[in-house]
């Protein structure tokens, strides 16, 4: 196991969960598939999140790394995990910036550990950018958020 992989709980700046912050050694996707006791895993942009689906029950933390904010593969990884029923912590780490927060949250991320800590006021505003939304994403599943199209026909 690589012991310097992953963020520590201290680096989590925003968290939308009530449970204890997971403080596990985080392993790579490949290692996670090989080790039956791993409970925390880190997804890199090129990894296939679906490889983790057989192990979701034992995972308490999935970190999704954004080496560059412009690489949007992590958004798909997050939704795929939530669509498969993963309910543990989904932490966005790396080049996580103010203007990506609202979309990340909608894709199912519920913890954020940016490389560079963000201005709290700016971040609060960013999370609240959209009062309503056009798409049904992870927020529909988790928070029961209805889309604009559903609200129109309620």
């Amino acid at each position, binding site marked *: 196991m690589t012991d310097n992989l992953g963020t520590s709980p201290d680096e989590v700046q925003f968290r939308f969960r009530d449970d204890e912050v997971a403080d596990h050694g985080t392993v790579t996707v490949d290692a996670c598939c090989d080790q039956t006791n791993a409970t925390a895993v880190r997804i890199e942009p090129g990894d296939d999140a679906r490889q983790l689906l057989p192990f979701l029950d034992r995972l308490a933390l999935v970190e999704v790394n954004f080496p560059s904010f412009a690489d949007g593969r992590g*958004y*798909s990884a997050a939704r795929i995990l939530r669509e498969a029923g993963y309910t543990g912590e989904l932490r966005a780490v790396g080049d996580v910036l103010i203007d990506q927060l609202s*979309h990340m949250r909608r*894709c199912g991320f519920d913890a954020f550990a940016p490389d560079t800590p963000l201005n709290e006021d700016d971040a609060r505003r960013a999370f609240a*950018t959209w009062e309503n939304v056009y798409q049904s*994403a992870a927020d529909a599943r988790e928070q029961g958020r209805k889309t604009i*199209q559903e*609200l129109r*026909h309620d």
Partner: protein
Amino acid sequence: MYKYDTYDQAMVDARVAEFRDQANRRLEGKLTEDQFKPLRLMNGLYLQLHAYMLRVAIPYGTLNSEQMTALGDIADKYDRGYGHFTTRQNIQYNWIKLEDAADILEDLSKVEMHAIQTSGNCIRNISSDHFAGAAHDELVDPRPYAELLRQWSSFHPEFTYLPRKFKIAVIAAEKDRAAMRLHDIGIQIVEQNGEIGARFYVGGGMGRTPMIAPMIRDFVPLDQLVTYAEACLRVYNRYGRRDNKYKARIKILVHEMGAEEYTRQVEEEFAHLLNQGVEPPREELERIKPFFADPVFEDGPKTVDRSDPDFALWVDRNTVRHKHDSYVSAVISLKPVGGIPGDATGEQIRIMARLAKQYSFDELRVMHTQNIVLPHVKIADLHALWTELDAADLGAPNLDTVEDIIACPGLDYCALANARSITVAQRISENFAAKGRTAELGELKLKISGCINACGHHHAGHIGILGVDKKGKENYQLSLGGSEAEDVSLAKITGPGFDEDGVVGAVETVTDVYLDQREEGERFLDTYRRIGMAPFKEALYD
């Protein structure tokens, strides 16, 4: 026409507020230019050669006179008195100041307009048939489906940082007036066994590696349309190349993976997503449809008085058959001889708006060929309309002729360009007009790009011109045989390039070959397809 409800308006208002906040954070130094760039791009703001350029979205190319008037006012208030209509049915302003951008967005939001996703690596403004709702040959009006997809693609949380930009076109006729198969996704609304559905073509595009999109699904039921699009995008977002921006478009993925394998993965993702509830309720499409209902057409005269030959010529050239026989769709050419293709002054934009209100049920369309359509004009009103257009220098009778040139902004404005496009377009149209040969040549689609990114659609021109930089000098490659229509094909290069004088002459040379060799009823493209490249090459180089 679609009208915003309070939800749509709130989305646009939130975006204006968000952009103001971002611009402020940039000015305060909280955002670096690298961090700000994708944000301003997603609001249509580019940094060009001389100034910022702002691109405003015109969803499926449809707008009303109030919106058109606002576009004219913005040209005068914030630009140097011009707007430039683009090949994506949008408008862009070339002389914008960064500090004005948020104010412009606010002005736009007051008339239900915005610049959202007109650039950046996201799903761009959705284009459609410019005669939608008026065409005699359409199955249904494609715009309700385009509107459904507009909502789905607006601020999509998963698809905002795609490998590269993503363009979708929706049509609903066999005749393709939207270059549908040269889009990342081209959707044709079709009928099968009495049911309406969507046919998906994926992986087309122009740019440096032009490709014609293969069909990947012949029929998607309408209540799965959004879900299928989501599956197409998810496979692309996960597997599209990110190591090289020139290989990042979906056409490269589909090509490298193979259409069959891409389709297999989409179908697998689609089957999964069908259980995820991503499709909007069916009632939403039914809510949207009435916005695009026909206006009340009245029977009237079906012919015009042809005693004025200039008027008769314009009617023959610039009006198109309508589904109601007392009406036509009238095309306002933004290609006056020697002019800048697609440009209009603020005053001309307001005049077009007024004429739309008076003669076309308050509706206008932007064509991907950089002209404007008044979709529903009474034949009885044509003379009055033409008289006003002619007085405003908007009456050029040259739709689909060699003067109706598509040209990108080129080196006169664009930071990417290697060569000028506009001057070449001006000289070619002046040359043919001066010799009086435009009418004789008939339909001839000439398209000019100032660099290999192909914004001027040169791959799809019956005659295409590509400007390149050759040892510090502008050089123009000529190509023949492209088409963006239902007979889609990619043009082939004739041979070595020409300088500016040379390419103007070369275009004349190839039209001479055509006139010499054409058979009854053949367009330039038909003759080329029949006789092949050799006779043209011989005339050009021997």
